[in-house]
Structure formats: C-alpha cells, structure tokens
C-alpha cells in the first residue's frame, strides 16, 4: 500500500543556494491523515510542501505523491500558500479567485465551463462563504479572505490538501471555527498543515511532525521533549504530556 500513499518521501535532501534546507527526510502520509507540521521559521516546512508539489527538485531522494511524480499528481492536490501579499484593491471577486483553483484542470488557454462555476459555488459553500461570491476580495476580512483561499484550494476537488500557515490573518476568536472547518474537510481528504501555532495544531490534527532540516515524526501525535528541543535548537518546556500534547516556547 505504501506505493499509493498520498505522500511517500524517501531520503529527501534539498539544497537551495548552497544551503542544505532538508536533510534525509522520510515521511509516509496515509489516506485520511491530518498531519500538522511544526518547526522554527526557516526550518524547511514550506520547502517540504513545495517538494510535495513538485516545485523544487530534490538534490537527492524520492518524492512520490499518490504513487506517481509530484507533477503528475498535481491535479489531485489542493494548495493554500503562505499568506500572499496580493494587492488588496485588486479588481477581482471572491468567485473569480476561487475559479483560479481550476487552473490545474483547465490548463493554459482552457476556458471555464458551467461545470467550473458549479465547482466554485460548491467550494464557496463548503467554506461558508457562498453569500460573498460577488464581493471584491479586498473588501473581505482577513479570515474571510483565508476561507476564500481555502475554497480555491478545494475547487479542484483534491484528494490531498496542503495548507501553509492557513490561520494567518484570522481573528483569534474565529480560529476554533476555522480549524473545525478543516476537520470537516479532513473527512473527505488527506490534509497536511504547516503551522507555528503548536497548541492549536495539537488540538485539531491527528498526527504531528516537526521539521528543522530533519523531520521528526513517528506517525502519531507523540514527539519527545528531546526531539522538539533538537528540532527547535533551543529549550522547549512541555506541559501536560499526553493529550492534547502542549508545548510552550523557549524559556530563559
């Protein structure tokens, strides 16, 4: 079964500009997983997502997505990039932004059909934004925009969802609601979520991996204090070892 896992990574090394960003990463993500990926800034979390998307060539090792190359599997993958600094006054409606997620199915020069429009409406519905379809994207709140971008990742009807810091820009009072949405989506698809919000991650995801050049992962929510400290390269205080697995930032 390993061969057709959503993500299967063996001995992955990635070097960028002469610097080793990922070192000997091994990872199996199974169908239905909700994997939270934590780690310090610059630790390689985004790089790992890009390798899974096939946007970076490994220096060494193998990345398989649904048993095939990342490029070939791209149609089955939905992607939410790290909050992009788009022009808040860009003249585009929420619906048009969601439609962009159909690109993988249409390709260059492909024209949108009623089917694409229906898919976009369903994706908006899935994130609870259907009444905002015709609003200009810049007129929505940060959290609403983030929902629109989740819809854009969903509109290609993916089997694997890659989310890079999806909670950015969302009001803390709305965070729970947002993570519930992701948990609902997880019933239909495998999700890998990069985040630095360790406590939130540990509450909602099924498994946790820690990335800092190397990947620390046992296929569960359990990571030892030593592993997290090694990953973060600084002392990390852990409280309430068990469920939910909570970690605090460095202490002095």
């Amino acid at each position, binding site marked *: 079964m390993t061969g057709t896992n959503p993500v299967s990574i063996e001995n992955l090394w990635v070097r960028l500009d002469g610097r080793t960003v990922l070192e000997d990463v091994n990872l199996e993500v199974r169908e239905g997983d909700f994997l939270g990926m934590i780690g310090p800034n610059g630790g390689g979390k985004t790089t790992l997502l890009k390798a899974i998307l096939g*946007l970076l060539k490994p220096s060494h090792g193998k990345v398989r997505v649904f048993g095939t190359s990342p490029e070939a599997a*791209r149609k089955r993958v939905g992607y939410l*990039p790290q909050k*992009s600094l*788009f022009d808040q*006054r860009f003249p585009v409606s929420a619906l048009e932004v969601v439609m962009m997620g159909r*690109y993988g199915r249409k390709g260059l020069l492909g024209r949108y059909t009623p089917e694409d429009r229906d898919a976009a409406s369903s994706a908006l519905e899935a994130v609870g934004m259907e009444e905002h379809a015709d609003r200009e994207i810049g007129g929505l709140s940060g959290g609403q925009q983030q929902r629109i971008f989740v819809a854009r990742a969903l509109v290609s009807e993916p089997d694997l969802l890659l989310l890079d810091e999806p909670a950015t820009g969302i009001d803390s009072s709305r965070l729970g609601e947002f993570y519930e949405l992701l948990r609902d989506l997880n019933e239909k698809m495998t999700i890998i979520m990069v985040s630095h919000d360790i406590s939130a991650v540990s509450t909602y995801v099924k498994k946790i991996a820690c990335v800092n050049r190397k990947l620390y992962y046992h296929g569960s929510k359990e990571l030892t204090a030593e592993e997290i400290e090694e990953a973060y390269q600084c002392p990390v205080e852990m409280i309430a070892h068990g469920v939910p697995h909570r970690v605090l930032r460095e202490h002095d």
Partner: protein
Amino acid sequence: MIEIFAYEFMQRALIAGIIASILCGVIGIYVILNRIVFIGGGIAHTAFGGIGLGYLLGRDPLIFAVLFSVAAALGIGAISDKSKVSEDTAIGVFWAAGMSLGIVFVSLSRGYAPDLFDYLFGNILAVSWNDVLLISVLTLAMLVLVALLYKDLLILSFDSSYGEAVGLPVRELRLLLLCMVALSVVVLIKIVGIILVIALLTIPGAIGRQHARSLTRIMALSILLGASFVLVGLVASYLLNIPSGATIILAAAGTFFASTILSR
C-alpha cells in the same frame, strides 16, 4: 468644431486615436496591476534605437521600433528573472542605451530628420493610412491574445506565486505580457511619442480603477476615457496649434488628478 473633422488627416487621427484607446484600455490595466509601468517606459525609450536605425537604413522607423521594443521586453524580462541584476537597474540600462543608439544612428545617417520630434513627442496629425493599418493589426492581435489568455493573465496578475504552484507557466506568460506591452508601445509612439507613451498606457486604466470594480468594466471605462482624451487633445491641438501628444496627455493627466481628488 465638427468641421475640423472634414479634413482627411483629422479623420485618420481620430480613427488611429480611437483604436489606440481600445488597445490602451485593455493592456493598460495589466500594466498597472502587474506594476510594470516603468518597464513600459524602458521599452518605449529603447524603441528609439529602432527609430534611429530606420532613419539610417532609410526604411520605415516603426518596423525597427517593433524589433527594438520586443528585444527590450525580452531583455529586461530575462535579465531581471535570471541574473542578480534587479529589474529597475535593467530598465535604466535599456532605457539609456536605446536612446543613445537612436542618437548615434540618426547622427550617422547625416540626413535631415524633420519628423524626429514627432517620434519623441508624437504627432497624431501625421498618421498615415499605412500607420492606421499597422495600428489596427497590432491592436487586433493584442485583443485576441487577451481574450484567449484572460483567465491565465488574471492568475498571473493577481497572485503569480500561486500560479506557479498550480503549474501556470508564469515566466513565459510574463515575457509574453512584456512583449504585448512592447507592441502596444509601438502603436502609441505615432500618437503620443516615446516620451509620453506610458502616460496614455496607464492613465485611463488608473482612472478606470478608481470607479469600476471588475477587470472587464475597468477595461470598458478606460477605453471610453482614452477615446475622450484623444478627442479633446486633438481639438485642442488643432485650435491652439500645440503638438497633439502633449494636449492628449494633459487632458488625461488633468482628469486623473480631478478623479483622484474627487474619489478620495
């Protein structure tokens, strides 16, 4: 006022101006959204090298302007993409080198270049039927390209890093957009001149953006605005005997300032 359009040169000027407005309205908003206004300036000034070469060889300068401006678009695009030279540095180098080449070629031709000033500041009254034909063909080609690539250009302009992630050929599409800007610049040289090109390319779109919320509406509004600026500029140019490029741009800039103040 109607009677001044009884002259054939005025009719040609009006037709050329309206076609150019259509082109500016459609391409201009992409220039604004992709923040490539100054790449447009660099491309336009590089085209002067082609104008000069045309003089030197005794051929139609606009044909060489096409070659130079497309080369500038690809050059600036490739340099800022692949090398460590930043985009504005590349623009500056092409800008100055193109102008210098133009001056060298014109000097070498030793001939009298009576309409050189027209290429720099535009003279819509000197537009020939051949020019109208060239402008129409280029505009039609641009419109077809935009219609075919509308969805792809929207992704490129809105969020190119997302485009890259979903497999959009971002680099190629961007170079294509720069080439489209280059060809638009050539169309506009006859009308407002090299130095004023970026104004006509961007002002209608900039005003349109203040008043319309969707891309297609901004395009429609920009076309109407552009055509009005050309009309007003033409009449003012005729009545006051001032070069048309300047009157058209001043009509546009005046409207832009008024619109900016009113829409605050």
